[in-house]
């Protein structure tokens, strides 16, 4: 049975269309990530799916309208959720557990999210990442069949994120359906069985991350920088390479090179006497897919940056975005403490940025 079915779901606020005709389904035990920038409609869609807002269209959770579903079966972490003040993490989890017929041991839930050691701290005194992990625990405490997390890792340090991903993978393996929204592409790519890309309230693509990258991500690129142009016989080198390539402004760009082919390129350059300063290889990822389909790149803060290339969601065509990495210059701000900084190029192959 599908855990979630949405058909032609729309929601309009005062004439502004927040969600526009979204249709999707999520299997039981699947991890589904909804990806898009701030304002794309992720939270509104979550609210429609959980029955906490009015909407047009049809939504069913385990075959029932959201508001008729046994509330023991769903766990929700809303976006920008702040629980009651002056309560410790332990008390908060126990409080939410107390609202259900059957709840897990709060201590075990806190341990699952890495909060066992800090459980006695009142919510206000916790770091941003600890607060978010406590909030995630409140969604887990009833051991739900469907877990809906709206941007659960915002403000969580990289180690905390990976711990949460592992936890969600374990839950899904045990049969829990996980619906998560995020603006972190690498999170969706690493965590989700399938990804839905949302832009301007419309779902522009849904598929497994690998399938989306294969279909829309374009080709891998090998960039050779710092070439001495005076010493380069560009025509000869380009002819010797076994891959499509172009040379401009001291950079040789070789496309569609797989890792095992890098040595061939290096050998070809050496044979031609070409010297260079650096050589970087990048493979396409979901960011490339999103850029391709929407013409927008996402900053680590979740804002969309329009590149002027790519197609609007309405067209549905797939012209390749022109500029590969020029918009990815953002740096995330990590609000968690003590576990290092968090930058946008985590988990990305070296040399992603020029």
């Amino acid at each position: 049975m599908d855990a979630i079915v949405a058909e032609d779901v729309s929601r309009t606020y005062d004439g502004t269309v927040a969600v526009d005709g979204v249709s999707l389904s999520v299997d039981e035990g699947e991890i589904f990530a909804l990806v898009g920038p701030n304002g794309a409609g992720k939270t509104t869609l979550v609210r429609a799916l959980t029955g906490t807002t009015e909407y047009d269209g049809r939504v069913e959770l385990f075959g029932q309208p959201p508001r008729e579903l046994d509330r023991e079966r769903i766990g929700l972490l809303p976006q920008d959720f702040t629980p009651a003040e002056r309560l410790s993490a332990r008390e908060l989890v126990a409080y939410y557990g107390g609202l259900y017929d059957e709840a897990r041991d709060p201590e075990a839930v806190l341990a699952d999210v890495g909060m066992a050691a800090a459980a006695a701290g009142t919510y206000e005194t916790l770091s941003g990442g600890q607060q978010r992990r406590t909030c995630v625990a409140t969604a887990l405490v009833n051991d739900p069949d469907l877990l809906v997390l709206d941007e659960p890792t915002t403000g969580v340090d990289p180690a905390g994120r990976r711990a949460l991903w592992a936890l969600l993978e374990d839950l899904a393996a045990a049969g829990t359906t996980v619906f998560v929204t995020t603006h972190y592409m690498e999170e969706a790519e690493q965590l989700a069985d399938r990804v839905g890309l949302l832009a301007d309230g419309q779902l522009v693509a849904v598929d497994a991350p690998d399938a989306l990258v294969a279909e829309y991500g374009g080709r891998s690129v090998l960039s050779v920088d710092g070439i001495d142009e005076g010493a380069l016989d560009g025509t000869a080198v380009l002819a010797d390479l076994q891959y499509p390539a172009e040379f401009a402004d001291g950079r040789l760009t070789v496309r569609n090179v797989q890792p095992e082919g890098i040595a061939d390129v290096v050998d070809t350059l050496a044979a031609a006497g070409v010297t260079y300063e650096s050589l970087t290889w990048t493979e396409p990822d979901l960011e490339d897919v999103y850029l391709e389909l929407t013409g927008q790149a996402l900053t680590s803060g979740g804002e969309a940056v329009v590149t002027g290339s790519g197609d609007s969601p309405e067209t549905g065509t797939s012209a390749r975005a022109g500029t590969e990495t020029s918009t990815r210059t953002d740096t995330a701000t990590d609000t968690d403490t003590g576990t290092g900084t968090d930058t946008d190029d985590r988990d990305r192959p070296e040399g992603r940025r020029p």
Partner: protein
Amino acid sequence: MTRSGRLAAETRAAAKAFLRRRTAVFFTFFFPVIIVVIFGILVGTQPTGGSLFAEPPGWYVPGYLAVVVLFTPLSRVGSEVARHREGNRFEKLATTPLSRAEWLLAQTVVNVVVIGAAGLLLLGLLVATTAASVAVSPALALLVPFVVAGVALFCGIGSLLGTFADSRDGAIAASNSLALPLLFLSETFVPASLLPGWLPTGLSPLTYFARGVRQLTYANAAGASETLLATARGPGVLGPVANLAVLSVLAVVLFAVAARSLPRTD
């Protein structure tokens, strides 16, 4: 978890969240002290005239009680609802078994306990520091349902203010703007004889609280003036049980409307 279990969990959390807010607790209990000190001691009452308060001290006891029954639930629940909205807590609660009515009931229980304690403190201060006396009789036990009904009613109104105000500050400002006229136009501190005849004091729910409590605490007290007794017990005047019934019906209606109006998200 049964309904009582959910209520207990919500009530415990709400009580802890309030009791650990030390400033709020302090002023909740300090407020009645200020009222008694200013109006009961500094200004005083002079039944022979010449004072702002011209009635016997015991006549004002319902007014003092009305202050805590009115102000605290209005501002506390109003700001709590606004706080819940700002933190998206109702969105989460909407996916739990806790209903909106149960949530509001838990808030009301906490307020009943807090205001009951503040009311006892206030009564003790009045008797100890002013010439007010309270008629002690079995009927005085009706004070408890009066306080419960009054608190529930103003929790409902406070909840509505918090639901429709655009911010916590807005909810508090709205509650103050509503509470002040209610306080002085509901036969609490100002007798109906001093108010314009056209003023429909019967539209204020606080009027039924003040009238009923006055009948319980003052009408049988020693030294009560015959004139005022007539207004409290005369022909056509509702008795304490009838006043309690009106107050209770209003409380149930407003509580239901408020619970129904609590938002899920937006």
